[in-house]
Every structure is written in C-alpha cells, then in structure tokens.
C-alpha cells in the first residue's frame, strides 16, 4: 500500500530561463521566424535522486493531452521506473480560449454567455458568481425572488457536478456503472435546467440584477421529484462504494493532502474540506441569501481520494437540504431588478411603448449600456462545486470591463498534482486525478 506522501517544497535550484527578451515582446508571427509553437520542457522537481538498486532506468511517459483518464485536456509528463512514478510535470493550456481578453471586448451583459463555458459541469454557479460580481461593481440590488432562484439552481448545478465527478472517479478505478448512473441522474437535472432556462448545459440564466425569466409553473413539483430521486441515488452510490473492498483499496491513502498544505497551495472547496479545514464561502461570507438557510459544512479527516469522494457525497446531502429550504422560502415578486439602467425591459414592453424602446436601445447599443463608475473594482468570491470561484473586475467607465480576472479553483488543484503522485503508481495517479475534479475549461479559460 502507498505510504502517506506529504508535500515537500524543495525544488531543484535552477535559473529561470530568460523569456523576457525585449526584442520578442511585441513581435507577431510574421516577424518572428523562430516561432514554432513549442511545448515547454518538462521540469521535474525530483526531491531525492536515489538510483534504483538494480540500475533501472527511468522512462518518460506522457499522460495526455488526449487520454481517456485525464478528464479534459491536461498533460502530465511522468518519469517512471517500472510502474512507480519518480517525478511528474504537468502542462495545461490546451483549451485556452482567451476568455479574459474577450471580456475586455464584450459588454457586461454579453459576457455571461462566456462564463458558462468555463466550468461547464456546473454552469449555473459560474453565472451566479459573475452576476454577483457585476452587481457589486454596479451597486445593484437583486430582488429576493431572484436570489432564492439563484440559490436553488446553483445547488442543483452543484449536485450535478458532484455526482458526475464521483461517477467519473468511480469509472477511473473500475466502477463503470457509477458513471452511467450518474449521467442518468444528471439528465434529470438537465430536464429541470431546460424547463427553467431553455438549455441543458450552458444556461446563461442570470442577468445583472436578477435572472433572465421566471420559473415555470410546475417547477416546485419538478424540483421535489428530483430531490427525492437524488436522495435514493446517493444511498445507492454509497452502497456501491463505501465498504467495497476494491474501491477502498484503490482510493484510501492515495493522494493525501494535509490541511495546512492545502491552504498553502491555495486549494479550496471539497478538497480542502476533505483535508479537515471547514472553509466554505457560503458560510464565511454569505451571498445571495445563503445566511437564511441552515446547513452544515461536513469535513473529513484523511485528505485522501477516498475522503474527497465521501466529502462530495456529504456535500450533495447538504445541497438537497438547502434546496428544500429554499423551495419553502421562495417569495413572490420580480425576478429582475426594476432599475431601468441595468436590466433590459420585457420584449412586449419594448414593442409597445417608447420609453422601453429607448431603454432597450441604451442598454444594447455601443457607447451606452451598463456603465459602472470609472476606476471601480471588485473581487467577489462564490462557492462553486470546485472551490472558491473569484471574479476580479476593474472598470474604466466603458461598456466592457477593463480587466476581468477569473480565479479558477482548478488551477490550484492541478498545481499540486505532481507532489501528490510522486512515489505512487500510475494507476494511483489516475485515482487522484479523478477526485481532484479538474475541469479543463475552467483551468485554461
């Protein structure tokens, strides 16, 4: 069995190569004939240089970027001796799309469609996080009904993300049925999302000041059915895995992260809580009405893959409780702020009377629109299923933001991977990667 691996931080002393040749700073492709699109040399922080007793050689093995077990476009370069990993290095950027640069060219309202595509497993959480950041930037109040709707849909989205993460983690260690069952339950959440927002996956449901449109008539029934179904599914998932000898052997003791190391590495979310630190943005700095609901922050002790798996199941339970309370708490009222400078008027209003038409024009046309104060900036953090999702936005008084920075939780989780898998087997690396829930869209943006 694997020993507990602690994270050490003794990198090999090296001079960082010179990337900042001033002559390369602004050249384009046509001017730089040496551009070859190279991948960086893997750099292995090998902490002990012991030679194999039998004089065995190390082999460099490439896991990704196209690999069934890396969920997303990640590349892990391994130096292995036999089946044992001596050192690892990672490379990302295979899905980099320039979201942040796009934000500087798209208006605030438009960019919400881009936020879906980051953490595409739980698009609603990204939407809500972005809307909250914009609302803080603009100083806008959100009606209570919209807040509760956001909470309900965020929690459903969190459920969908967690069960698929667990399902895929199970598939990686051999429990293939988990993945199929998880996707079947995710389809139920998709049905709900489709009834409310119009699409399954990339919802783009929130607007600045509220949500796009009100819930359908039968939402309450739909939601309650899904909650019931999930309660029994979580039981099923537990019975398949917890106490299962093979599953526990694969997952226990693999990829252990201690609490203090997790904090040092910037890890948040279920992984942090599985290492024993009870930090959840919903409790620490509540947003969108979370302070009204009664829920716990479960934690686990061990910090290994098994603990992360169990942690996600426990958080699903909490999400179901929150959803039930929020459904009771749903008030009547508008779902979009009445402030005409922020929210688009209804389409039939636009077609009927002239003020709405003018407001619609002012929102959409270039040069007008939602204009925050020049120089205003905000860092707003919400709890996405992966961890703390932060949006840092700076405005220069224009219709598009001057700087939008997304603090993706996955990047810090993936940064710690080489330390976690050093000294373990390749199959343990897969088990670790499965429970880290690294979503490439969020990682690379």
């Amino acid at each position, binding site marked *: 069995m694997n020993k507990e691996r602690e994270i050490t931080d003794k990198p090999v002393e090296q001079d960082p190569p010179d*990337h900042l040749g001033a002559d390369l700073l602004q050249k384009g492709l046509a001017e730089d004939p040496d551009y070859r699109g190279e991948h960086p040399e893997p750099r292995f922080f090998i902490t002990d240089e012991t030679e194999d007793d039998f004089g065995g050689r190390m082999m460099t093995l490439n896991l990704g970027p196209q690999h069934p077990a890396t969920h997303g476009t990640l590349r892990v370069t391994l130096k292995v001796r036999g089946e044992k990993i001596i050192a690892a290095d990672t490379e990302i950027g295979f899905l980099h799309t320039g979201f942040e*640069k796009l934000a500087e060219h798209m208006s605030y309202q438009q960019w919400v469609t881009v936020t879906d595509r980051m953490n595409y497993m739980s698009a609603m959480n990204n939407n809500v996080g972005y809307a909250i950041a914009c609302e803080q930037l603009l100083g806008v109040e959100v009606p209570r009904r919209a807040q509760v709707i956001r909470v309900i849909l965020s929690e459903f989205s969190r459920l969908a993300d967690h069960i698929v993460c667990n399902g895929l983690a199970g598939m990686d260690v051999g429990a293939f049925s988990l993945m199929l069952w998880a996707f079947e339950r995710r389809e139920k959440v998709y049905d709900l999302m489709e009834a409310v927002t119009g699409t399954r996956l990339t919802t783009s449901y929130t607007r600045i000041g509220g949500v796009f449109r009100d819930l359908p008539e039968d939402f309450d029934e739909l939601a309650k059915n899904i909650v019931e179904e999930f309660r029994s599914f979580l039981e099923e998932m537990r019975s398949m895995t917890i106490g299962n000898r093979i599953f526990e052997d694969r997952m226990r003791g693999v990829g252990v992260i201690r609490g203090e190391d997790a904090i040092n590495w910037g890890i948040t979310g279920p992984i942090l809580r599985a290492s024993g630190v009870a930090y959840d943005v919903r409790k620490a700095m509540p947003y969108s009405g979370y302070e009204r609901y009664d829920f716990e922050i479960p934690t686990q002790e061990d910090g290994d893959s098994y603990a992360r798996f169990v942690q996600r199941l426990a958080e699903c339970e909490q999400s179901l409780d929150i959803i039930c309370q929020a459904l009771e708490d749903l008030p009547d009222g508008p779902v979009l702020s009445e402030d005409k400078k922020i929210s688009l008027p209804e389409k039939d209003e636009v077609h009927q009377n002239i003020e709405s038409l003018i407001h619609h024009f002012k929102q959409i046309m270039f040069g007008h629109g939602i204009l925050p104060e020049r*120089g205003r900036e905000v860092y707003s953090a919400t709890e996405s299923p992966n961890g703390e999702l932060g949006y840092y936005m700076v405005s220069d008084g224009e219709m598009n933001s001057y700087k939008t920075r997304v603090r993706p939780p996955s990047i810090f989780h993936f940064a710690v991977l080489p330390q976690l898998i050093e000294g373990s087997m390749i199959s343990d690396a897969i088990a670790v990667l499965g429970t880290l829930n690294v979503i490439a869209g969020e990682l690379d943006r």
Partner: protein
Amino acid sequence: MRTTLTPEQITERLAKRFAEGVAAHLPPGEGSTRLAIVRRDLLLDVLGFLKSNPELSFDFLMDVTAIDHLHFEDPAIGERFAAVYQLYSTAHNHRLTLKTPIPEDDAQVPSAVELWRSALWAEREAHDMYGIRFEGNPDLRRLLMPEDFPGFPLRKDYPLRGRGERDAFPQYLDSGPVSRPVAAASAEDAPEGPGNGEGDGE
C-alpha cells in the same frame, strides 16, 4: 481569537507599520473598500507581515494577477503594470486586495512563492499573460500559451484576434497534406518562413 477586521482597519495597520511604502487606497464608487498599494521593494516584507502577524494571519493567497494600465491611467498606481494579490485569512475571515506598481521597462517583482505555494502557478500565469517577471519563482515558464509564443496576450497592445498564430502551425508543416492554411491561394502566397521548415513534430 477570531477578530474579523475590515479592509480599512487592515490597511490602517499596514500604513502604521510601513509608513511610506504602503498607501491605503480607496477606489471610486459607493461601497468600495480600501486596498493596499505597496511599493515594490517592500512587497515581500509586507506580505510576510500579513502572513505572520497573529491578528492579520493571511494564510491563503487566493490569487495573483496583473493589470495593464496602458489605456486607463490610474494615478494611485502611476506605472504601466500593477500586480494584484488577493489574500484571505481562515482564522479571522477577512480579505484584502493588495497592489504593487510595476514599471514597464523593468517589469519584474519579487515572487511570493516562499510564503504561499499557491503563488507558483498564479505568477506563472501572470507572467504568461503580461510578461511580468517574478524573481524567485523557481518555475517561471509559460503556463497557457506555447513556450515560444511571441507576445503577451493580455497586454492592451496585443490584438484580440492575435497576429496570425492561429492559422499556421510551424511545427507541423512537414507531416502531410493538411499542412497549409486554407487562406493561401497558391504556393507563392503562402507565408514565408514557417512554410518549409523542418520542425520536430510534437
């Protein structure tokens, strides 16, 4: 003991301790909270103080990023670049945003990686996107773009659509029929340089 401080109180303590190097800046707008602007040479001292002082105890470096003030002069910063640090304390549940002005001709700043390991990749990305060098970061390679990408994408003078890198793949041009960009109508119009190179395929 858990004492949650407001950004005003935190920046006040910082300004008291590091008299000239730290300014408590209030961005415009109603409801804005103060952030600390730290002179570059004092940065590591300030960050160390923020981490180790028991009343501040910032054990989480949430994010490191940078801003390019080329088109939006910020008088509080004064330089072209600013590195931005987001800090959080689990013990006291308070946050702080911290900025450091960085001049364009000397685009480097000390790295916070000794204090918080989360700076390792966050600084790599800031370097990749803006070209700012973090002295002391043991692994300052590019993170998201290819290693020898000519340019720093999030700078304001880099165009959104790039400078042609997305239509040609120089390392791939010796491997078969699907090698020339569709835009070139004939062999003469094909872009020079990467056209006939023998790059090593990846």
